[in-house]
């Protein structure tokens, strides 16, 4: 018989005896006592044994012992029914509490069920099913449709669509081909992949993420530390008060009876366990962290949830965070020929160059470069290129290049890098190449403001006109431009100093070259963490995808979680103190005491489960 069934049986038996005892209404007090005592022992025997064991172990002030004393005390003052009923009530409450905790743990576990159970290793012509732990770097593993990729690696054969939602929270599948990288935790939706393993299981993405999330609650929030400390003193203080209340009034106040005040003291004991207070906090925080991880946001500690909920300033790095970090042709301004021809000349002229501008031009051109059309290529570093295209002399480069060649170019207002194109000695037009802002950057800034972020700041090493233009476009309050890496830390220090005591500041970067700034901020947020160990390492909060809008989501999750935790703390404290006060006045029964203890715990646990859900975020 399972433990749960045994306990249920005991509760039923004890209840029947209790009811019999009440209904029998006999004058034989010995019989009455015997029935109630039997009922009490059937119900509370386990509690008494546990209480005795803990006293021997030197840890007297625990739940079992306090409950034992309270109920035995009730028997002493002749309140048999109360003694049995309180014990029964307590057990039922405990069962409900265990059920609620279990359910909450299971939903957390489901959410984080991204651990691969097995790997299929190719050995000669055989396929061997093994533990992912036992696969070595260089082994070839096979992943069929519907299976989870167990280890990080490179695809050597096959292609398929991958569901990365376990890692990114993103439901749009991603396509991989031979030569591409795959990360553990993704699910192969179709096709068959052969993968060469590049990382052992412990180093693989999935195990790193799980490790991070599971250990996140070891970095505790201030509120959590406060409650742990409070709980440490709460029980002894209430126990001492219980003793004083039972003994002092009968001795000092005329007419106060010992039995009456002992009853009040015993009620104190029933409420002296801090469990409701303590239990809901780790479950709430963990729920929030688990819920966030389901959306592709890794939060490395409860303390960061707390800071996120208090943010009032968000500082962004520009390139790669708010912008794509990829330079693209933004505009073609043609003076004398068709813009398509201008791009054709420019792309061909630059085709032998390794400069990023060359790649941007090729990409915008989008067609095969006719290498045979080009001859006499010359590159002048820092200026541009010169060559013959279709027999015509083509120059592509900046104003300096044109000036040295004696070609006049018109003044141009522009943001970004300007490439002039001259054909046969006359300036034919210009091409503007710039970094593009991400699709959701503007919306992200707007939603941040709507959820109470007072100040948004952008830091960039880029030129003033480029930086300020991006800031204007996105609606960012302050932009600091032309910064060196040290400059970024300096500005952050200044912003932190301007900050109010209770508020917090976050820095958002790509986690690659802004580690010092990430470390200095109250919360360091790295974007695009998927596949980037450096970003995962450096930041306090890692957003797996590249979307700035996830920052808003993480703040919302943090606020919701903190709200739930606060509700639980306030609710359980208010109920406990109210019952303590009523008990002192003789208005609360021991029944109310049990309700204040286990009832509140169950409600708090159920409430903390709400932190898991991120549906409306």
């Amino acid at each position, binding site marked *: 018989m399972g433990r749960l069934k045994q306990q249920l049986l005991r509760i039923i038996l004890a209840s029947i005896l209790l009811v019999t005892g009440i209904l029998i209404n006999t004058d034989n007090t010995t019989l009455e006592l015997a029935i109630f005592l039997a009922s009490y022992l059937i119900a509370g025997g386990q509690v008494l044994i546990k209480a005795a064991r803990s006293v021997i172990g030197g840890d007297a002030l625990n739940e079992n012992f306090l409950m034992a004393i309270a109920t035995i005390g009730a028997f002493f003052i002749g309140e048999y029914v109360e003694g049995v009923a309180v014990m029964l009530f307590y057990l039922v409450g405990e069962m409900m509490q265990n059920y609620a905790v279990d359910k909450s743990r299971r939903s957390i576990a489901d959410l984080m069920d991204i651990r691969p159970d097995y790997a299929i290793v190719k050995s000669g012509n055989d396929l061997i099913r093994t533990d992912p732990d036992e696969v070595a770097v260089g082994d070839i593993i096979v992943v069929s449709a519907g299976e989870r990729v167990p280890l990080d690696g490179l695809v050597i054969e096959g292609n398929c669509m991958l569901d990365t939602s376990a890692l990114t929270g993103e439901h749009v599948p991603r396509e991989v081909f031979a030569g591409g990288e795959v990360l553990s935790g993704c699910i192969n939706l179709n096709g068959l992949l052969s993968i060469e393993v590049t990382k052992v299981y412990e180093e693989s993405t999935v195990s790193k993420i799980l490790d991070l999330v599971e*250990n996140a609650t070891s970095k505790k929030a201030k509120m959590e530390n406060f409650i742990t400390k409070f709980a440490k003193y709460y029980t002894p203080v209430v126990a001492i008060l219980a003793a004083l209340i039972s003994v002092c009034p009968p001795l000092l106040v005329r007419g106060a009876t010992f039995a009456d005040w002992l009853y009040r003291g015993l009620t104190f004991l029933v409420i002296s366990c801090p469990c409701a207070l303590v239990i809901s906090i780790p479950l709430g925080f963990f729920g929030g962290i688990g819920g966030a991880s389901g959306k592709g946001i890794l939060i490395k500690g409860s303390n960061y949830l707390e800071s996120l909920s208090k943010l009032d300033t968000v500082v962004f790095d520009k390139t790669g965070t708010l912008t794509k970090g990829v330079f693209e042709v933004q505009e073609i301004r043609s003076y004398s020929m068709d813009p398509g021809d201008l791009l054709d000349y420019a792309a061909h002229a630059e085709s032998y160059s390794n400069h990023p501008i060359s790649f941007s031009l090729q990409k915008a051109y989008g067609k095969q470069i006719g290498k045979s059309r080009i001859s006499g290529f010359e590159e002048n570093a820092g200026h541009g290129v010169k060559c013959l295209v279709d027999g015509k002399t083509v120059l592509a480069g900046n104003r300096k290049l044109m000036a040295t060649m004696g070609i006049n170019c018109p003044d141009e207002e522009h943001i970004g890098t300007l490439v002039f194109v001259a054909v046969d000695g006359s300036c034919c037009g210009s091409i503007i190449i710039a970094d593009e802002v991400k699709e959701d950057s503007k919306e992200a800034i707007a939603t941040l403001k709507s959820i109470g972020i007072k100040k948004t700041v952008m830091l960039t090493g880029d030129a003033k006109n480029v930086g300020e233009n991006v800031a204007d476009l996105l609606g960012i309050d302050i932009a600091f431009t032309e910064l060196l890496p040290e400059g970024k830390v300096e500005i952050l220090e200044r912003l932190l100093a301007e900050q109010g005591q209770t508020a917090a500041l976050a820095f958002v970067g790509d986690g690659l070259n802004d580690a010092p700034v990430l470390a200095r901020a109250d919360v360091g947020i790295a974007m695009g963490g998927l596949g980037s160990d450096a970003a995962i390492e450096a930041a306090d909060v890692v957003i797996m995808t590249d979307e700035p809008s996830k920052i808003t989501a993480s703040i919302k999750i943090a606020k919701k979680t903190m709200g739930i935790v606060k509700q639980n703390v306030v609710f359980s404290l208010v109920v406990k103190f109210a019952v303590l006060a009523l008990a002192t006045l003789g208005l609360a029964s021991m029944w109310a005491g049990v309700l204040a203890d286990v009832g509140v715990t169950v409600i708090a646990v159920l409430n903390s489960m709400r932190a898991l859900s991120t549906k409306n975020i």
Partner: protein
Amino acid sequence: MKKTFKLMGLGCANCASKMEDRIGKLDGVNNASVNFATTKLVIEAEELLMDKIIESAKDIIKKIEPDVVMQKA
């Protein structure tokens, strides 16, 4: 070195924080944490003392919550 254990049957959150507190104070332990939600105990301690620490941790857990079983995770 870091070792992780599963605490089967961990039911009381206050007990969890008591365990964390006492194991953390053992000689040679750099950090101990009990995650009530996943019922996992992580001990970071000096390698040489680890075996002794694990034994002491088992004792502490038994005393605080007798029904809890500490297993290797």
